[in-house]
């Protein structure tokens, strides 16, 4: 019992640490908020384009719902372990984390998760204001499907985290790996449904984009939350998420283990 209490205390302390780090640079926080409202600019844009009739199966209201949900999901699945890990490998800060009784990976998980409530608290009023301005959004109306939303969001978060962890581990060999993450990010912005729903893509490209991990991180949870998916589609999407997580998680685990050996060999 006391070990459990001890673990909870450790987790709570680390969560407080993550929170404190997040609010320490207030200007950076502000810039991050501005960056994160980009889906809402997309909303205005596509809403204007859909003025004289729906685009594909999206009318103005559908675009409102889609992009507000995209904005919120992007907040909920965010993490930044790639930059932290990349830096701590290069300057040796990782050694300090390795000395602690908590795994550095778990450390990053807790630090990243602990800021999610803050992110949501900042994002929710913005989303709400947009909803008031545009006249509401439609959400999933099947209550049983809502049961899928928490696991889907958790998987999306884990996918994003493990991808970042994998790329960050490359820093063990490359010294600087964060720029490589730009490759993922560039493809993500185009293919995840962040800038435009993937179902509107030209035939062929759409089918390909929808099985890629980018869509599993953002587009799929969004489509689920605005009620565009049936039970069977939702389960297929969930399966894809799990499949990608197994693959990327395995890569991350291998890279992390081998990387730690390379890191020790460096003597950093």
């Amino acid at each position, binding site marked *: 019992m006391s070990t459990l209490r001890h673990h909870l205390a450790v987790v709570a302390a680390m969560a407080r640490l993550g929170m404190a780090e997040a609010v320490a640079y207030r200007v950076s926080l502000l*810039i991050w908020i501005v960056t994160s409202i980009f889906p809402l600019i997309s909303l205005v844009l596509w809403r204007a384009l859909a003025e004289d009739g729906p685009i594909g199966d999206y009318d103005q209201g559908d675009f409102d719902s889609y992009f507000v949900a995209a904005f919120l999901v992007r907040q909920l699945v965010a993490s930044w372990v790639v930059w932290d890990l990349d830096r701590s490998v290069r300057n040796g800060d990782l050694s300090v984390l390795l000395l602690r009784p908590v795994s550095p990976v778990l450390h990053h998980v807790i630090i990243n998760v602990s800021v999610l409530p803050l992110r949501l608290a900042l994002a929710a009023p913005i989303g709400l204001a947009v909803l008031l301005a545009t006249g509401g959004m439609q959400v999933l109306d099947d209550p049983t499907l809502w049961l899928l939303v928490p696991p889907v969001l958790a998987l999306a978060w884990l996918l994003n985290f493990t991808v970042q962890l994998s790329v960050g581990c490359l820093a063990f060999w490359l010294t600087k790996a964060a720029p490589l993450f730009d490759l993922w990010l560039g493809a993500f912005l185009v293919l995840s449904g962040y800038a435009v729903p993937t179902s509107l893509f030209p035939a062929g490209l759409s089918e390909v984009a929808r099985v890629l991990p980018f869509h599993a991180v953002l587009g799929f949870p969004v489509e689920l939350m605005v009620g565009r998916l049936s039970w069977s589609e939702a389960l297929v999407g969930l399966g894809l998420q799990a499949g990608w997580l197994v693959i990327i998680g395995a890569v991350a685990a291998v890279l992390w283990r081998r990387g730690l050996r390379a890191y020790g060999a460096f003597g950093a």
Partner: protein
Amino acid sequence: MSEPNASSETRAGGGLRRRRRRPRRAAVTGDGFEGRGALHRHLRLVAVQLRLRVLAALEYRTGFWSGGVLSLVWSIAGTVPLVVALEHRADIAGWTPWALCMLVGCHMIITGLFGALVQPSLYAAMDDIRTGALDYLLLRPVDALVSCLVADFEPWCLVEAVAGVGLLIVGMVGSGVHPSLPQLLTMALVLGCGVMALYALAVLALSLAFAALELQNLAYLMEAMLDFARWPISVFRGPLRALFTFVVPFAIMTSYPPMALLGRLDASAAVGALVTAVVLAGLARATWQRALRGYTSASS
């Protein structure tokens, strides 16, 4: 010596947005710096910095792939939303596909120049402000702002700008326009205003760096916002249109030049572009001077 650092970091990172240490003393110790006119000094500084960076770029040719080809690929990938919109519509807010091709060309010119000239200098100068290395720049017999704005270049990123010029010409041929000389001049004028506005925004960001120091994500924000410059200004409504015309004038950078070539830009809009760019530049200069007065160096 700082150059070996640059090589190892470049080879190791090979990333999109990397920063390099640069041999900045070379510009100062060059001969013939004293006793000439101010303009001569400034031009020489720009020429020396350009030459050094071009030499470095030719030395590290991986930059051709990471800086040139890759940014070109992103640029093309970034047009996917436009392509999607054209998939469902014959035109976008009055812009035919060929006119949009011209607009995307202008966008690539602007982002290419941003990646090659503006962003590297911005990163380098922000670094100097944070570390106090700005002291050395202030000692130069040239304007400190000029020193900051030529602090670094990424010549390979110009690949994107060149491709943009190509796309602009393709768009012109495709839409069958034969612009008259005044129309060409107007295009050059508004594109110039666009570049000026871009620099003004960069200087404003740089001035902010004096107060907040850790602001590299401000440059990232600018880069991310540039994605919206790929849409014609007529798509935007209300406050966003005003924002993108006067405050962050994407309209001047990407929409106005093709409109000038198509003969759809009226004189008042051209004058408005000029005024906006000049006002932004003046504001940037004033903010910079104010910020510089507050600079206390890092160690003192």
